[in-house]
């Protein structure tokens, strides 16, 4: 007979409920409900209502909150190896990302996390990041020259854009809309879904499909609380996070296409980057790999590159 206690798991998110993460959480909730006979419940909080992703992750580590769905990028200050996902132009497409994250390399990273006080249940998708700005279409890296680009408070992103000649400014997400609106900054970079749901199209002119980075979401669980769970509960969480993942990725990809249509309708001028220019960007970005290999961990970067090489051979 399965062992389940009555539990309410507090799960926080930086994004709003209409984000594909909402679909994933819903699927996960239904799955947990079924497996636990209604005993494991999720209390979900959206839009950073319980604090930002980094704060929530710290709460997980101290055992004051159960779960968070967070981008890997804000956590680099705690778990330097996660910086590997911030490296520019790492994955070429979603299939590559899925194969690496759900494969051996993803497990290698997940296995590191308990040491930092969190358990990674699954990799969900934030998606490929693209650049919007109010100046000009970005068709080659030189077009970034002098552009004031908001980046996350993260050194790899800072260097990626600084390296291409932009004036990269770290800024918290909450300030971005008004800073774009008032033209304190010219540009920002995010997945299509975020560009759409945050209404950046209202305050930007151009969207360049640069796909310069792919960020996964981690579905993290508090290690101190995890250690108090019964085996059945752990298994249910792990399985349901995978169920949630499949639904979340499906919704994310469907919505990504729809979001791109939306922002085009809303008047953003969209340009693709020509393959040879994309290749020049990739080459230009290589110095960022060299610069940050040390802080991320040489072995992590090498393993990632080996896994990618292996995958691309097939």
């Amino acid at each position, binding site marked *: 007979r399965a062992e389940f206690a009555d539990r309410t798991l507090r799960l926080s998110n930086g994004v709003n409920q209409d984000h594909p993460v909402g679909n994933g959480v819903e699927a996960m909730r239904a799955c947990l409900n079924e497996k636990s006979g209604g005993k494991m419940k999720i209390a979900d909080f959206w839009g950073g209502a319980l604090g930002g992703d980094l704060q929530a992750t*710290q709460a997980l*580590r*101290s055992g004051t909150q159960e779960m968070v769905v967070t981008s890997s990028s*804000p956590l*680099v*200050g*705690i778990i330097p190896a996660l910086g590997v996902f911030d490296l520019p132009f790492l994955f070429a497409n979603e299939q590559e990302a899925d194969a690496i994250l759900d494969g051996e390399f993803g497990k290698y990273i997940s296995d590191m996390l308990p040491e*930092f*006080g969190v358990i990674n249940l699954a990799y969900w998708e934030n998606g490929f990041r693209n650049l919007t700005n109010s100046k000009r279409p970005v068709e080659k890296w030189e077009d970034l020259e*002098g552009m*004031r680009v908001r980046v996350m*408070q*993260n*050194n790899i992103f*800072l260097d990626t854009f600084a390296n291409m000649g932009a*004036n*990269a*400014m*770290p*800024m918290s997400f909450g300030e971005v809309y008004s800073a774009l609106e008032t033209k304190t900054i010219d540009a920002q970079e995010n997945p299509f879904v975020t560009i759409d749901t945050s209404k950046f199209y209202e305050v930007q002119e151009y969207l360049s499909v640069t796909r310069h980075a792919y960020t996964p979401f981690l579905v993290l669980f508090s290690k101190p609380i995890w250690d108090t769970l019964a085996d059945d509960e752990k298994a249910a969480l792990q399985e349901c996070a995978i169920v949630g993942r499949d639904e979340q990725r499906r919704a994310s990809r469907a919505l990504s296409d729809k979001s791109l249509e939306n922002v085009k309708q809303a008047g953003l001028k969209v340009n693709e980057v020509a393959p040879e220019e994309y290749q020049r960007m990739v080459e230009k970005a290589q110095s960022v790999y060299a610069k940050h290999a040390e802080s991320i961990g040489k072995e992590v970067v090498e393993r990632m590159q080996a896994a990618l090489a292996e995958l691309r051979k097939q």
Partner: protein
Amino acid sequence: MHRATGAATRIIELVMVALLAGMALMVFVNVVLRYGFNSGIAISEEMARFFFIWLTFIGAVVTFHENGHLGVETMVRMFGRQGRVICMALTNILIIFCCAILFWGTWLQMPINASMHAPVSGMPMIAVFGVAFFTSVGIGLIALARLIRILTGRVTEAEIAAFVGDYDDIEALTGRGE
């Protein structure tokens, strides 16, 4: 004793002024750099925030010493001397309790803050979160000293007056930031 607290207060005040001036300078220089040279110092945003946190939590002790924190004194003002003194004792016990919680929590969080680094400067976050040790110990000790004076019957009329709020001190009223 009085001279020692006086000297300590003046040193802390100097630190507060330096922090405020420092954060203003960092933010201002970044504005100038952006328009003058289309550049900026990435670390400024982060350091200004940390200065701000230090200023707040160091300053909280000095302003507590001066009874500068906002309270609602309507009810205690309705009491006579004895009622006021009882409320004062209870308040100080409540403050010591809160300080103990804050200290304990900061202590327990030490490992996770020591192992987290600020994204741009790389500074271990315990340097930021650790300021709560200063705040909880500082305020806790002041409240404890007050409690002891109350329990030993050495509390002065001036202290009681400060507790129920001095509404004639314009400097203090405008210093509440309202």
